[in-house]
Every structure is written in structure tokens, then in C-alpha cells.
């Protein structure tokens, strides 16, 4: 315990040290991205589309694999894994949305198809990519401590896009989530707004995959918002609370994993899961008392 407390002290000292820019980048990226996760997570949880976010996060491996294959095969330096993930996430979101809206295909079937084919394509692209072997593990499990300055800038830009678009279209997005048919009947292009929401989720998932990896990505989108839902009946309050919770989880995860030398992503997710579990117990006890 004493070692852990000493380690925590080292963590805060390291944050102030000029030699540990990566740690500061990780913390800043986590804090900025938390706002995005809180806002988009609010929509994901209340609209009950967390499996769409999960499918998008797994399909990103296809985009990462393709970008590595293309950049190495054709010397396309601009075709970075980040570019590949954004394209794959947006394409997956639009395919899921269009197929369920236009073709009226079962949404769960499409989600399953995008999920598995995206991963399969990614594995094959990485296998056939020329040059040295690719460490797919870093994409699958992520590592927030490898956040560079350019990653930080990208996180900031994507975060600003998500927050700005959500703020501007907040009422319409909420109305589409509550009653898409009614919005359509008011002459508002409800399907376009639903697709916009899926694109916002896709961009958030790209951020998440960079921080926690594709396996754990869905947890940070869903768990803080699912915890917040238990304490408010207003969507904007849920989003605010989820953002604060997410900031606490990422900061707490970094602070815990730094002295204990444990992987940060899983620690952050465990904090989020534990808090969600406690919120279930607390609300359950309160409901029993009021009965």
C-alpha cells in the first residue's frame, strides 16, 4: 500500500516533469476524449445502439489493415492507420445505417456481418502487408501511454467536430432518437440525422480505439453513460455526468497503472465497470427503501 502511495506521488511528479511528455499527452488526450465519449455515449445508451458502436470498433481493424497494406505496397505515405480507421468507421456506420433504413434488413444481422468481415479483412491485409511484421496487438488492445503530440492534435480536432455538431443539432438528434417517424412527418430529414448520429459515433470510436484498443473501446462509450443514466432524466445532464465520470476513470486509470506498471486501458475499463456495478447496487437499494 505504501509502495502504491509512493507510486502515486511519482505519477503526479512525472506529470510536472519535462521528460515525460507522453504521460501528459496521455492524460490530456484522455480528458479531451472523455467529453466526446460522454456526449456520444449518452446517445448510444439512451437510443440503445451500443452494439452498433461495438461493430464499428471491430470493423476498424479492416481500415487499419488496408491502410498498412496500401501504404507499404504503393508507398502511399498519406494512407496512415488513423486515416484507414476513420474511413472504415464512417463506411461501417453508413452501411449499417443505410441497410437498416433503406433495405429494411435486420439491424442485428448487419451488425454481425460488419463486425466479423471488418476484422477478417483487417487480419488478411495485415498478413499480406509487405515489410516487417505488424504488431496488431497495439491496435486491438491500444495503449494510451503511446499518445504522441500529433495524436493529441487529432484527438482535439475529432473531439471539436463531435461536440460542435452535437451542440448544433442537439434537439434534432434527440427528437430522432425518441421518435424518428414523427420527425420525418414534420418535414425534417430524420434518416439523414440518424446517419449523422452514426457518423458521430464512428468518429468517437476512432478516438476510443486509439486510447483503449478496439476490444475495450465500447466500454468507455457505454459504461460512463449507463452509470449517468441512473442519476438523471435529462439527456444533457447524462452527457455532462458521463463526461465527468469518463475523465475520472481515465485519470484514475493512468494514476493507478503508472506506479503498478499495469496496462492502462484495462484498468480504466475496470474502474468504469466497477462504478457501473456500484451504481446498480446503490439505485437498487434506494428503490427497495422507497418501496
Amino acid at each position, binding site marked *: 500500500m505504501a509502495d502504491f502511495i509512493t507510486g502515486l506521488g511519482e505519477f503526479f511528479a512525472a506529470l510536472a516533469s519535462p521528460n515525460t511528455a507522453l504521460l501528459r499527452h496521455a492524460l490530456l488526450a484522455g480528458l479531451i476524449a472523455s467529453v466526446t465519449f460522454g456526449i456520444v455515449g449518452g446517445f448510444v445508451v439512451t437510443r440503445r445502439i451500443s452494439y452498433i458502436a461495438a461493430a464499428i470498433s471491430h470493423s476498424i481493424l479492416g481500415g487499419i489493415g488496408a491502410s498498412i497494406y496500401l501504404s507499404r505496397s504503393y508507398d502511399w505515405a498519406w494512407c496512415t492507420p488513423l486515416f484507414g480507421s476513420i474511413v472504415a468507421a464512417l463506411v461501417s456506420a453508413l452501411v449499417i445505417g443505410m441497410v437498416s433504413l433503406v433495405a429494411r434488413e435486420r439491424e442485428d444481422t448487419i451488425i454481425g456481418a460488419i463486425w466479423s468481415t471488418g476484422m477478417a479483412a483487417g487480419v488478411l491485409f495485415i498478413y499480406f502487408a509487405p515489410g516487417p511484421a505488424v504488431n496488431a496487438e497495439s491496435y486491438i488492445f491500444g495503449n494510451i501511454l503511446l499518445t504522441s503530440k500529433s495524436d493529441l492534435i487529432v484527438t482535439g480536432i475529432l473531439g471539436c467536430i463531435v461536440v460542435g455538431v452535437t451542440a448544433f443539432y442537439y*434537439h434534432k438528434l*434527440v427528437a430522432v432518437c*425518441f*421518435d424518428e417517424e*414523427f*420527425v420525418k*412527418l*414534420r418535414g425534417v430529414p430524420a434518416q439523414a440525422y440518424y446517419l449523422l448520429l452514426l457518423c458521430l459515433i464512428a468518429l468517437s470510436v476512432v478516438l476510443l480505439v486509439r486510447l483503449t484498443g478496439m476490444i475495450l473501446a465500447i466500454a468507455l462509450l457505454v459504461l460512463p453513460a449507463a452509470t449517468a443514466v441512473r442519476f438523471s*432524466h435529462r439527456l444533457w*445532464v447524462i452527457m455532462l455526468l458521463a463526461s465527468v465520470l469518463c475523465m475520472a476513470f481515465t485519470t484514475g486509470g493512468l494514476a493507478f497503472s503508472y506506479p503498478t506498471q499495469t496496462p492502462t486501458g484495462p484498468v480504466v475499463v475496470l474502474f468504469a465497470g466497477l462504478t457501473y456495478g456500484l451504481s446498480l447496487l446503490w439505485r437498487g437499494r434506494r428503490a427497495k427503501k422507497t418501496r
Partner: protein
Amino acid sequence: MSVPVIQFDRVSFGYGPTRVLEEVSFTVEAGQSTCVIGPNGGGKTTLLRLALGLLEPQRGEVRLFGEKPRDAVRRIGYVPQAMRFDPLFPVNALDIVLMGRIERVRFGFFSKACRLAAQAALAEVGLEAEARTPFANLSGGQRQRVLIARALASGADLLLLDEPTANVDLTVEAQFLDSLDRLRQRATVLMVTHDIDLISRLGDTVLCVNHRVHRHGVGDLHGELLREIFSGEFRLEHDRRSRHQAGDHSACQHG
């Protein structure tokens, strides 16, 4: 001569090989309150969705205010069944009523006029005190009235209601019927319903839908006719009420 608010002209529609509506023609004039009844699978919901422009007729033509439904969409207020919605969705009554003016959001905000109109609509259905109440905490009847207020807030000239008294508690029904009664003063109403009490109190005419449409006056409805319409397949809401109240009256007395 004024243009009918709703005009179905020899409309046919089916899902795959199954014909649901066949050569349906009727008109609803301004200010009328029309109830749509019929057995399950008879085409009531299809008729409503055709009127809303959510379905296109395979033959014939639907006109609202002399225009295609898609062009008249902003003059329509639609009130779906409250049970269709996720009761845990985190919005309050005012948020939902404001959705009736969602097309008027400018730069991410509702104007003050929109908020006032929404509050007035809530007052009209007797729920002004519940404006900030979460949807999850409203009763079934209150939720249904919030949806009516949403349609009113849109400033619609035509209200289309889908079984407005379904799942409404009998104890709050009187208040609920008052809200519906006030609707008739300001808009043309077409409602799908199984509720004979509602028809007798609020309906001017009744459209009996069972693949084809027959129009009747409310006073024409009697037990024999209803049995004929429903072909013995359907138990009227009235029968349920009769059993609850152990009263000895039949549907025809409400006609």
C-alpha cells in the same frame, strides 16, 4: 366548394400478394371528427399510414388539403400510441411537446415563441404543471396527452390519432376525453379506435374498414352492424368495459 381535408380516391394497397385495402374512396371535410374502426388486419393502420404519406398507394390517389400527403405534411399532427416509446428515454414532457416544432429549430435553439406554444399546448391538455416531469414518471394517460400536446404545438389543421385511448387507465379516461374533445374545436380529427365510448362521444362519422371502407353516422352503429363489421373475430373494447363494470348494456346503445 371547399377542398376536402382528406380525400381517398379508389385507393388500393397490399403487402406482397395480400391486398389490404381495395378501391377505397372517402372524403373527410374540414371540422369533422371521424373514427376509423374495423377488425385486426382489416387495414386501419395501413389507411392511417397512407394518409400520413408513410406509404404510397399502389393504385388510386390520396390527397390532403388538395395536395399530396408529402407536401401537406406540416399541416398534419400525428398522435401515435404512447406505448410505442421507450418509457426510460431521458426527456421531460416539455421536451417532447417542443418536438412538435422541431422543424423550427434555428442554430440549435428553439425560439421563445416555440417554447410558449409548447407550454400553451401542455396547458390545453391539462398538463402545464407536469412540463418538467420526466416522461418515465408520467402515467400512461399523461404520456398519451403529452403526445396530443405535441401534435397541437405543431399548429396542425388535421390530427391523425392511432388508438388514443389504448392503455389509458379508466380512472383518468374522463379527463383524457375532455382533452380530445377540445381538439375537435380547433382541428379536423381522424382517429383509429376500438373504443365505442370514444366514438359515441367524439365521432361525427365512422369509417368501418375491412379491406373496403363503409361510412356510417355514429347513430347508425348498432350491435348487428358491429358484429357484421368485425365478423365475430374481434371483441370490442366496450365488451371489456362491460365486463369490468358488470353493466347490462350493449354496444348499440352507444350508437
